């Protein structure tokens, strides 16, 4: 019991995850700034922002639905933290696992987007409403490719459990490059999930101020931002676990370092996308996802099916 609580609250649970997430935000901002020839923030900036926001007054619009408005950020935060426990980080086992946890994790990672929608919708502000609708529209565009991409390696491993997927690739160390196409698809979908450039359409500052978050302030905004930071790390961990399952047998300190290296490599990729692209329009984004990303994801499924039927067995 004591150990379980330690795992959930401290390591590798909430506290550790928060620390890594804040560092990931710093890393992203600093790298983004350096790529743009700026100085960038000091290392404690995300933490300072978080603490400052916690201390600020919560301004809730009169028109807003108070319950939904308050609950949305908390749900977002809770969902991403729970998802983290089912993802194998170093070694082939996650903290908790059961058969079918892959599906649960994917659904848990959908919840933040739903809370962005609900929070924005119940803010009742025009900018928030438009942002909320855009969040959902975008969800339908990237979610299917993401699911398909992540199911591909699981299909090869013949399991719906993330830990067993990792175990499978631990047993077959040279199989992971097969899924590289799906990895690319998942990266693009992750950009959409995290609402980052070029898919930051729901928060497009120059059109709809801050989208769903326009009316959020203080503590609630801090939770939302923290949820997004954690979602970044959880998303990167998920991709690392499913698509980059190498070096899982390394002893703890080395394995841990390798895990961090993997997620930060994924964050570097996300930052690079942010640096070199302009924001797309919602219609262009949906078209891009359905025309290119989804078919490519299905291509991976096809490849894996063929491999499974004719080659591996």
């Amino acid at each position, binding site marked *: 019991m004591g150990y379980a609580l330690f795992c959930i609250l401290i390591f590798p649970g909430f506290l550790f995850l928060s620390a890594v997430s804040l560092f990931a935000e710093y890393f992203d901002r600093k790298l983004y700034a350096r*790529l*743009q*020839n*700026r100085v960038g923030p000091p290392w404690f900036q995300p933490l300072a922002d978080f603490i400052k926001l916690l201390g600020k007054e919560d301004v809730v619009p009169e028109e807003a639905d108070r319950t939904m408005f308050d609950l949305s950020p908390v749900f977002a935060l809770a969902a991403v933290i729970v998802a983290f426990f089912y993802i194998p980080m170093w070694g082939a086992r996650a903290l908790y696992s059961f058969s079918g946890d892959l599906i649960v994790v994917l659904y848990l990672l959908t919840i933040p987007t739903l809370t962005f929608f609900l929070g924005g919708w119940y803010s009742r502000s*025009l*900018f928030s*409403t*438009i942002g909320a609708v*855009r969040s959902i529209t975008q969800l339908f565009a990237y979610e299917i490719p993401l699911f398909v991409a992540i199911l591909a390696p699981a299909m090869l491993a013949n399991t719906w459990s993330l830990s067993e997927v990792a175990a499978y690739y631990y047993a077959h160390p040279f199989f992971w490059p097969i899924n590289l196409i799906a990895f690319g698809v998942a990266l693009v979908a992750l950009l959409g999930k995290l609402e980052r*450039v*070029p898919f*930051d*359409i729901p928060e*497009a*500052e*120059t*059109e*709809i*101020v801050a989208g769903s978050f326009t009316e959020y302030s203080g503590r609630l905004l801090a939770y939302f931002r923290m949820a997004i930071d954690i979602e970044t790390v959880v998303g990167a961990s998920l991709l690392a676990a499913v698509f980059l399952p190498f070096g899982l047998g390394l002893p703890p300190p080395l394995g841990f370092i390798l895990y961090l290296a993997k997620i930060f490599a994924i964050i570097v990729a996300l930052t690079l996308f942010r*640096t*070199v*692209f*302009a*924001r*797309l*329009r*919602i*219609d*262009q984004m949906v078209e891009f996802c359905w025309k290119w990303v989804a078919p490519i994801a299905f291509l991976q499924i096809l490849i894996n099916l063929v491999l499974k039927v004719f080659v591996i067995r």
Partner: protein
Amino acid sequence: MNDTENIKAKLEAKFDFLKDAVKLQRDRRLWIEVPYAKFAEVFDFAVKQLGFSFLCTITGLDAGADLEYIYHLAQGAGQMLNIKTKAPKDQAIKTITAYFPSGIIYERELVDLLGTKMEGLPAGIRYPLPDDWPDNQYPLRKDWNADVLDRNVGSKMEGENINITVGPTHLKEPSDFSITHKNDVTIPIGPQHPALKEPESFSVALRGEKIVGIQLRLGYNHRGIEKGAEQRSYIQDVYLLERICGICSHAHSTAYVQAVEEIAGLKVPKRAEYIRTVIGELERVHSHLLWLGVAGHEIGFDTLLMYSWRDRESVMDILALITGNRVNYGMNLIGGVRRDITPEEIDQTLKVIDKLEEQTKYYIQLALEEVTLIQRLSGVGTLTTEDVLRLGAVGPTARASSVPRDIRKDDPYAAYGEIPFKVITDDHNDVYGRTIVRMGELMEAYGMVRYALKNLPDGPISVRAPRKIPAGEAVSRYEAPRGEDIHYVKSNGTENPERVKVRAPTLANTQAVSKMLEDRYLADLPIVVAAIDPCFSCTDRAIEIINLDNSEEKIMTWKNLRDYSVDWYKKQGVDFSKMSSRGGSAFGGKRSKFG
């Protein structure tokens, strides 16, 4: 016989009463005065037969019992016909929006500022006065002063339950803009919005993501500059008018001094004209680089913003080096320029120009290759050649639709007649085309600065100007970075001008914005608006400044102000006084590398 004389001959042949009454002020400047009864006929002839297809602006003047109107018409090759007419103050005049849809904004201005009764003017939001402006107060009339206003009106907050009795009654809400579908929403972009750098307001009606209606409200930046200019001397006005805009400040001050010089008959030395041209082109470089960054930001491409604004700093440094100021250069005098350019400054400028040219080539390559950039810019904000001609767009907005409208070529001023350059046009007709045009103009500007600095004539930099300018009037046209800037100056023989009228390029271009947004998406709005490079502080001028604060006036010198700010921050726990000011940071100090 040249073109101008040709037009003169045609006018005189057509209308008997104009015999020997067409004033040829100089090449490309014609003035005629017609009684109002004949005005419609003459106007129709000028537009339809003589090919004056562009309405620059309408100037209104208070002439005692009458109001005087000057319709400034222009032709492709820089010919300008100024038709003057007069009507008693209580007599309504007819709108000319049937000829020029773009004239609507100039007519609204007349209605608000001079109390013209305009017959046939479509309903719409008033411009430029605030909604709670009292009736029957026309600030540009000579007998008007700000004392008649109740200064508390308009300062009350909504909900304080104060009955505001004044308000616009002559202009109603527009009828062509209404929500017709139950799923439509109207979102307010402005007066305060992250996409806008200056206050203006767009009400955008949306059906889903699609724009179905747009309503533009201008006037938040009115500072009373036109009225203010009448109350100051010619010299003071140079500095006042320079402050119309923080970016094309040189454009406004040059346009103004050129008009005054024309009235006074001053011959500006060649060297001064070259220096004005150099500053003008450097200003264009800084303005276009600024635009590039803003455009990048509007489409969520912040890397472009950071890069182009970094490069813009170096041209700002050059401007500071030559003129002593970053923004309001204070370079123009009536009769010349204030400071000479030294050989060292020329060397520095040429060096920076070389670097910037390299960078601009990189941006051009970027614009030609970057996929998301092209996706977001091409096909957006389309404005066909016909639309440009009909709506009277100017500057890069017009040139990106294959309309080679450029005052520097059409009606050369300063040294533009002697410096070789190309007018950049493009046939994309969209935001992408406007980007290409501006990038091309950057390259041209580098060449022009280089040429002007290498061929800088020797001689004095100014001639002495009289304090009192003889009675007369002149129109000056200037190709500002955003398009044609027009200043009309009328003198009455005293130290103060009788009337100064400014038509900034943005006012001409705002007319085209609604057209560009037809059937577009909300996501396109920021970039389409940004693509005309709007400058609302230029657009909103006129009217006396009303000081609501009756506190004692305090004069603070620069040093006082600086000390005050240092102390203020010290109290907040931040001490800036120990920081070394990086004097001459233009070229010394640590600078990040280009590229």
